[in-house]
C-alpha cells in the first residue's frame, strides 16, 4: 500500500470512529426506547429483543408531556413565525438599503445572542411577573421572539445580499415597486437559505432550556423542561420512559436538521 493510500485509510477510519462516537449513543437511546424494563436492566446489553411501544405510549399518555408538547409547538412555532414576519423584511432592509448604521444594527442584533441567557432571563422574569404574565405562553412567545428575531436577521442578511442586485434592478425596470420586488424576487430567490435560517432559529428555541426554566412553573412549561423532570422521579430511574421522551423530544429538531443541512450546503457551495 502506498503511503498515500494508507493516509487515506487512516483518515477514513478516523472519520468513521468520530461518526460512531456521535451516532451510537443516539442509536442506543432509540433502541432502549423500545425495550422492556427487563431488557434494559440486564447486565449484557441486548441488540435483539421484543420491541414494545409501552414507553412511548406512557410518555405520550402523560398529561404533562402532552401539555409540554403543545406548549413547545405553540411557543416555538409562534415565535419563529413572528421572528420571520418581522425579521425577514428587517434583514432585507439592512442588506439592500444602505443606511449609515447598518453594520451597527447588525452587530447589535447579534450582541443580543452574546449575553448569557441568565442575564436576559432574570430581568425578563421580573418584567413578566410585574405584568402578571409570568408562566404564560404569551410571555414565553414574546421572549423567544427576541431570540428568533436576532438569529433570523443575522442569517438572512447574507442570504439577501447574495441575491444579485441586477436581478432586482431588472424587476424595477420591469415596473415593479420595492414591496413587489421583495415578495416576488428577493424572497423566492433567497428562499433556500432563508428556510435554513428559519429552521435553525426553530431548533434554537425548541431546544432552549434555561430561559424556559426560569420563566415557567407549570402552565407554560415546554418539552425540554418536562423531559428534564422525568429524571427527577426518584432513585428508581425509569430508563425506558426517559429514552422514549428523549426520542420524542429529538424528532422535531431532527426533521428541521434535514432542511438545515440543505441550507448549510448552499452556503458552503456559494463560498467555494
Amino acid at each position: 500500500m502506498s503511503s498515500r493510500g494508507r493516509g487515506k485509510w487512516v483518515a477514513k477510519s478516523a472519520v468513521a470512529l468520530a461518526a460512531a462516537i456521535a451516532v451510537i449513543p443516539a442509536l442506543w437511546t432509540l433502541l432502549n426506547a423500545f425495550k422492556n424494563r427487563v431488557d434494559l436492566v440486564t447486565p449484557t446489553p441486548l441488540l435483539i429483543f421484543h420491541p414494545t411501544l409501552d414507553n412511548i405510549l406512557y410518555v405520550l399518555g402523560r398529561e404533562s408531556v402532552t401539555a409540554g408538547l403543545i406548549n413547545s409547538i405553540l411557543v416555538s412555532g409562534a415565535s419563529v413565525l413572528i421572528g420571520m414576519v418581522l425579521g425577514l423584511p428587517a434583514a432585507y432592509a439592512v442588506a439592500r438599503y444602505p443606511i449609515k448604521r447598518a453594520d451597527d444594527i447588525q452587530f447589535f442584533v447579534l450582541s443580543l445572542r452574546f449575553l448569557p441567557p441568565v442575564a436576559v432571563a432574570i430581568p425578563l422574569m421580573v418584567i413578566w411577573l410585574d405584568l402578571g404574565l409570568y408562566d404564560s405562553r404569551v410571555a414565553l412567545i414574546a421572549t423567544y421572539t427576541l431570540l428568533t428575531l436576532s438569529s433570523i436577521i443575522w442569517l438572512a442578511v447574507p442570504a439577501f445580499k447574495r441575491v444579485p442586485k441586477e436581478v432586482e434592478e431588472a424587476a424595477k425596470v420591469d415596473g415593479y415597486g420595492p414591496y413587489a420586488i421583495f415578495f416576488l424576487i428577493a424572497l423566492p430567490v433567497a428562499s433556500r437559505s432563508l428556510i435554513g435560517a428559519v429552521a435553525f432559529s426553530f431548533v434554537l428555541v425548541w431546544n432552549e432550556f434555561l430561559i424556559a426554566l426560569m420563566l415557567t412553573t407549570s402552565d407554560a412549561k415546554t418539552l425540554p423542561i418536562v423531559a428534564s423532570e422525568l429524571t427527577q422521579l426518584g432513585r428508581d430511574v425509569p430508563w425506558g420512559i426517559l429514552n422514549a421522551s428523549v426520542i420524542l423530544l429529538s424528532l422535531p429538531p431532527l426533521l428541521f436538521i434535514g432542511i438545515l443541512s440543505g441550507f448549510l450546503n448552499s452556503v458552503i457551495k456559494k463560498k467555494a
Partner: protein
Amino acid sequence: MARISCSHVCKSYGPLEVVKDFNLEVEDHEFVVFLGPSGCGKSTILRMVAGLEDISGGTISIDGKVVNDLLPRERGVAMVFQNYALYPHMSVFANIAFGLKRMRVPREDIERRVHEVSAILGLEALLERKPAQLSGGQQQRVAIARAMIKTPAVFLFDEPLSNLDAKLRSHMRVEIARLHKRLKTTTIYVTHDQLEAMTLADRIVVLRAGLIEQVGTPAEIYGFPRSRFVADFVGSPRMNLLDVTVGEAPDNKWALSTGHETFLVERGRFDLHRGMRAVLGIRPANLKSTSPDIRLNGLSGIVDLVEYLGDGVLLTIALPGEPARQVTALVPAEAAPVAGTVVGFGTPPEAIHVFDAETGKSCRSAYLGAAEVGQSMRDAS
C-alpha cells in the same frame, strides 16, 4: 420611439464626481454606443437614463418629458444587463412575461406576444426551462426578449456581450444589429469593446473619466480622432504614437521630427508652431512596406515580433534610438518578413495624425466634414 436628451447631467458619490456636465441628444431610431474604459462613467449615465441611479444635477428627458424624478416604469425604457439578470426562480416564459404582467396585459395577449418574441430570438424550444439550464448566449437572448416584449421607447444595453466567449459575441452582435434594423427602437448601448462600438453604432460617444472625449459616427471616430485618447482607444491593432518636435519645412509644410525620422505634412491641415512638442499617430494599416533607407514620411527598423493573424501579419518593429521605441505594422501574410530583418515603411501624409503633447487634443485645423471622412477611408483601404 423617442428622442433622449441629456443636458448638463452630473453624477457624484459624495465628493467623487463620476459624470461631469454630460450633454447629448440621441435622435429617434438612433443607435448610440457609449464607449470607454471601465470607470469612465458610461454605465452610470445609462443607469441614470434607466432610472436606477439618481441624477445629481442636470436633466434627462425622454420624448420631450423630463424623467429625472420618474420611476423606471414611467420612463418607457427596457434594459439588458451585463450578467443577464434573469429571474432564476422563474421559467424562461415567466421571465419574458414578468414585465407584461405588471402592466396587466390580458393573459392571451401575453401568451401571443411571448411566442412572437421568442420566435424572433429562437427561444421557443426553451420556454419551459429555468435560466440555470441555458447557455450564456441563450440567457442573453432571454434577457433581450424580456426587454423587447415591452415594446419600450428606449432600449438600454449595459455591456450585454462581455460575459460571452468571442465567437458567441460576434454572433450576438449581428443579432442585436439585425434586431435594431427591424425594430428601430432608440438604443443606448454601453461597451468597452471598440469593435462592438464600431460595428453597431450610428454614433459613438467616447467617454473618459466622466467627460465626453468625442461624439461621432464610427468613421469619424476612427478617421478623425479628436484626441490622443480616442486615437489610442479606438482601432485594433492600436495606433502607433511617436513623440515628435515640430519644425518648419519649405513648400508650406511642417516637418515633424522624432530625431531619427522626419514626416512632412501640409501646414493647412494642422495648427502647429515651431518648436512645439507633439505626438504623431499612424495606424498600423497605414504603414506600407518600402525600401529600408526611406528618409521622409517613413521609418525603418528591425522586425522584432511577427504575429500571424490569418490574412495579415502584425509586425512589431524596433526603431533605432534611445529610449526604446517600437511601432506595429499590418502587412499581408504573403509579404511578411522574418524576425530580425531590417525593414522600411512609408506612410501617406494624409494618414498622419498629430496631437498636442501637452493637452492630448488633435492639432487638426478644422473639423472635417463627412466627405473627407469618406475620402480618407478610401485612402486607408
